[in-house]
């Protein structure tokens, strides 16, 4: 579904990503792993069109997206849950969810999608009228995921969903993501620092080090890999 080849990107004169290649298929959860500063977020920004790649191709269902605007990419169904949640704290929970349907394509199906989002995260329905800033950290992350769901993703990108959250809430959120991959056939790209959690949820994974893909393989193979064990799992 998503096929990235030889991707290079960076900010101004500084190149961050060097020849990144990976792919994600429908119904699959793929983890992008790496420590702080490895280039994970830049990669997300490149795929969603917020950073323009300097080389390489990003193909989504056969269409080249490397030079397209973030708006166009979103319309194609690549929806991200940005790092650090980034919800609109002064708006109500419901208004936040409505903003997920800002693009015309998803507006007609808003009420269906809202019901789906509420089914996944019943807490949000209870708190629909509350200002989003009054939610707990976990609920805010749920809201960010729910807002992405309203945008009817074909590819859902979760950028560091574990950031600053209690482990059981992270599990809940990852469960929803993998459930959607298995049941609805959407592709999930999980970008994580918490490698144990990410590999427990993902089918396959890629390890980024210094802006390059250092390793790739199935979740089991990566969990068993000596380098991964030593460098990331501390075993």
């Amino acid at each position, binding site marked *: 579904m998503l096929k990235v080849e030889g991707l290079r990107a960076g900010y101004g004169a500084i190149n961050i990503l060097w020849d990144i290649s990976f792919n994600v298929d429908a119904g699959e959860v793929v983890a992008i792993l790496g420590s702080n500063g490895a280039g994970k977020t830049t990669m997300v920004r490149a795929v969603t069109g917020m950073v323009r790649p300097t080389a390489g191709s990003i193909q989504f269902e056969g269409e080249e997206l490397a030079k397209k*605007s973030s708006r166009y990419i979103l319309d194609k169904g690549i929806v*991200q849950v940005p790092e650090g949640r*980034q*919800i609109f*704290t002064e*708006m109500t929970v419901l208004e936040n969810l409505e*903003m997920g349907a800002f693009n015309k394509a998803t507006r007609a199906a808003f009420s269906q999608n809202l*019901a789906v989002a509420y089914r996944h995260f019943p807490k949000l329905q209870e708190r629909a009228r509350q200002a989003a800033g009054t939610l707990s950290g976990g609920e805010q992350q749920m809201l960010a995921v729910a807002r992405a769901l309203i945008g009817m993703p074909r590819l859902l990108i979760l950028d560091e969903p574990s950031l600053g959250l209690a482990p059981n809430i992270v599990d809940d959120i990852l469960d929803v993501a993998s459930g959607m991959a298995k049941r609805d056939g959407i592709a999930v790209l999980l970008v994580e620092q918490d490698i144990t959690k990410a590999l427990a949820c993902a089918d396959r994974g890629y390890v980024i080090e210094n802006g390059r893909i250092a390793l790739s393989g199935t979740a089991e193979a990566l969990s068993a890999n000596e380098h991964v064990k030593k460098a990331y799992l501390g075993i």
Partner: protein
Amino acid sequence: MSENVKAVRAYRRNVALALGLLLLVFVLIPVFVKSPYILNIFVLVFYMSTLSMAWNLLGGMTGQNSLGHAAYMGLGAYASCLLITKAGANPWLSAIFGMIVVGLVAGVIFYPCFILRGPYFTLVSIAFGEAMRQFIINSTFFGRASGVGLPFGRDSWLDFRFGSKVPYYYVGLAMVLLIYLLMKKIERSRMGYALRTIREDEDAAAAIGINPTKYKIMAVVVSAMVAALVGFFYASYIRYIDPDLMVQAKSTESVLPAVVGGAAYVEGPLVGGLIMIPLSEFLRARYSAMLPGINMLLYAIALLAVIRFRPTGILGWYMHSKTKKFVDEKLLRKPPVEVFEAVELQKHSGKEA
């Protein structure tokens, strides 16, 4: 129909009724009030509130704190005045010309500036205002420091020229009403929602497919055009403009009604303008003769009190005490699974949810 929907409708009806009555009062004021001094204060309220509404679109709704709105107003005044005096154009057409010119200037100048955020944008807006003022002071075409006067003559609607204050009062009132409706329209549109999200978090807005630069430019252009309209009104009313129209203090004055009334609320500048401008005039008339400057001091104290104790403005304070966000209670009250099933059912029966 649920109780809540009825309550919402009743509330909206009441608000519309109250606003209608208020408008009626304003329409009738010149019939009973003959004092030019009082009418002048109302005209002042009208155009300052409108200028503040222009600021509020950018500063309040979009969160881009501009301190250069006097420059847009001044440029609008100059563009329309020069077209009248140098080309003999009709004032109403000149107003439109002024708005277009100022909208273009604002869009072109601020397009590259919107990579700047927060205080940097504010600094640029201050610099822009001062640069425009200096440019006019040094330009012979713009009449340098001596300004431009509009011709006097017989009362005429065509030339928008009157000896009495009453016609200005009504045109000013119409201007307030028109711009209020425009702002209300913008607030409820897609653009309004986009602006709110940009105010809260630009990066998050971009993440859900909103192009922040595009909407910020739209806001700055509309805001500048409204300010230019106020400039035209001001010039036609006072019939003389000079570069002092664009001093920094005037830009600040355009911010005050919105901040006091409640920035981020479309009605904020109106509430603030209706309170602060008569207050300022009253203090000047009552106290400035006693001790020079004391009126400014009292005004500043009133302003500080609002900012200290009601930072969201009068409307913000009122709204928080009375939550008026209505959503579909029906959907909220049902347990989640039931809602989902209801929607699924509707989907399968082919009806719109």
